[in-house]
């Protein structure tokens, strides 16, 4: 009896807000087509997929594609490059954004502060193609970086930043820091402005100078923001971005250090036409990423920070 009442209650509630469903269901269908349905393509990873034969006609090979993938030197090299560049980007991205936010916070002239901030966002709005073109110009043999280094006497001959595998990861870090430092600092600047001014006054009464206030008040004040963002970014460690690597690192010499998992997928899938292997690699990446995101979220919860999901 009560069941019955509850059931009609649900339907009544649904029909009462019918229009909500008219609004959301088309969007859900859309999302199904563009986000859920392609997941069926993962079948390819367990097949020797031939486009002419389709999903049903292609031969199933079980885990052979994965077996091949995990035995493939090139795949592990791509894996290494991805993780290395992500970690470097993560560490230096955080470092520069935090230091920039701290220093900007110490600027007293509000107009100058605002202009600096606005200018620091500029590269974020440029596309990676343009950023790569600008970075290429900066790092060219007659570019500004080499000119400055020469003027400072740090080097006599131009350094070929873009031709030397040993420099490539640092070029990627440089491009990322240049593009995103200002943008990533937004959140820290906001967090800093939320710190209770009374804390600074107390520190001042205790005789703390500028640096000690930064170290003992400002940094602890944004600690939780840093920790949460750090953890969440660790969750996306397999997304090293691929545009810089693709645009500046496709030169034969650099492939050894520039090829990421995404480029591996692109190469095997689109250029070579080995769709099954490429799908397997992409699937590997998605599965690991999801595990990392959930792991990161669990850690954030355990540390008592706000859950992000």
């Amino acid at each position: 009896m009560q069941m019955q009442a509850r059931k009609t209650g649900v339907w009544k509630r649904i029909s009462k807000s019918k229009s909500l469903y008219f609004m959301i269901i088309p969007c859900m269908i859309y999302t199904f087509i563009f986000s859920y349905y392609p997941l069926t393509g993962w079948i390819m990873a367990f097949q020797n997929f031939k486009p002419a034969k389709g999903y049903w006609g292609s031969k199933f090979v079980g885990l052979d594609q994965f077996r091949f993938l995990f035995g493939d030197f090139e795949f592990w090299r791509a894996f290494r490059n991805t993780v290395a560049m992500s970690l470097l980007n993560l560490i230096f991205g955080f470092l520069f954004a935090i230091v920039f936010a701290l220093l900007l916070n110490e600027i007293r002239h509000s107009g100058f502060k605002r202009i600096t901030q606005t200018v620091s966002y500029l590269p974020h709005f440029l596309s990676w193609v343009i950023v790569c073109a600008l970075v290429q110009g900066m790092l060219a043999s007659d570019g500004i970086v080499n000119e400055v280094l020469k003027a400072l006497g740090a080097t006599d001959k131009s350094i070929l930043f873009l031709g030397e595998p040993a420099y490539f990861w640092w070029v990627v870090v440089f491009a990322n820091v240049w593009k995103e430092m200002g943008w990533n600092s937004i959140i820290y600047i906001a967090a800093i402005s939320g710190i209770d001014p009374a804390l600074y006054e107390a520190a001042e009464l205790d005789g703390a100078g500028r640096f000690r206030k930064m170290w003992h008040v400002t940094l602890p004040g944004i600690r939780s923001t840093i920790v949460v963002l750090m953890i969440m970014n660790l969750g996306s460690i397999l997304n090293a971005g691929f545009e810089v690597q693709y645009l500046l690192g496709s030169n034969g010499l650099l492939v050894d250090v520039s090829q990421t998992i995404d480029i591996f997928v692109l190469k095997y899938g689109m250029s070579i036409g080995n769709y099954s292997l490429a799908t397997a690699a992409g699937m590997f990446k998605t599965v690991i990423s999801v595990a990392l995101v959930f792991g990161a979220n669990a850690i954030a919860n355990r540390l008592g920070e706000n859950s992000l999901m």
Partner: protein
Amino acid sequence: MTQPYPVMHKKRFHIHTFDIVNVLIMLLVIVIMLYPFLNTVAVSFNDAQDTLRGGIGLWPRVFSAYSYEMVFKNRLMMTAAFNSVARTVLATVLCVFFASLVAYVLSRQELVGRKFITAYFLVTMYVSAGLIPTYFLIKSLGLLNNFLVYILPGLVSVYNVIVIKSFIQSLPESLSEAAIVDGAGHFRCYWSVILPCCKPVLATVALWCAVGAWNSWFDTFLYAPNADHMTTLQYEMMKLLSSSMQTGRDTSSVFGNNSEQANIITPVSIRAAVTIVASVPILVVYPFLQKYFVKGVMLGAVKG
């Protein structure tokens, strides 16, 4: 308070030098952020042959707008500019509409199954099928070499939905309640009560959508690499960049670099001009939206 006077004095001096050093660091940041761009502006307005001598800084040495003339006279470049503008305008309008629509529905308490539907959208943020399955989907939908491929795939952006939803949830409930009691349907309530209150967050999301659409080249590269009618400014820029990466600094295919022309246009100058054309529209807009997107970043970070 027993500190001797000279120490106080020293401390004050110390603060002073820190301020000066800090301002200098910030000036250095400004220079590093602006120089590459301003240098490109100078190169784009400099005479192409003169540029080859090197040493262009922040100001053109021999002024010439010829590179721009060449860009604007080039049929392919004009197609690219048209496509870039068209996809940006369409994608921005639709992306803001759908993101706010979904956000409104998900913010309604009376939605039965709200948790499930929210999760249904959230999952897609983390689980993606990947490049190859998506390519086959696009192909089977007949979107290869089709302008719609620039619009359809990104229509409902879950991240933007979350940002708008947290904004809507921060609005007073009485707002929409009053509209619903007055007998307005949900669509009316969304369109004429909630949307007008969301202007700040919509401005942020619109900026993000516009930047994303304007700056993307990878979809052209994947789904229409050889279709001239589908090209965009960023894709043309990508072609110029990769041809210079392959061969050092030399030929650009688009502008037919035959020998008579070679002494008046060069890839370096053309590339500089295209860089400016492809980035100025966004750079003109973003400073005015600064106060909005700073808030938007915060909303996204809280529940990202």
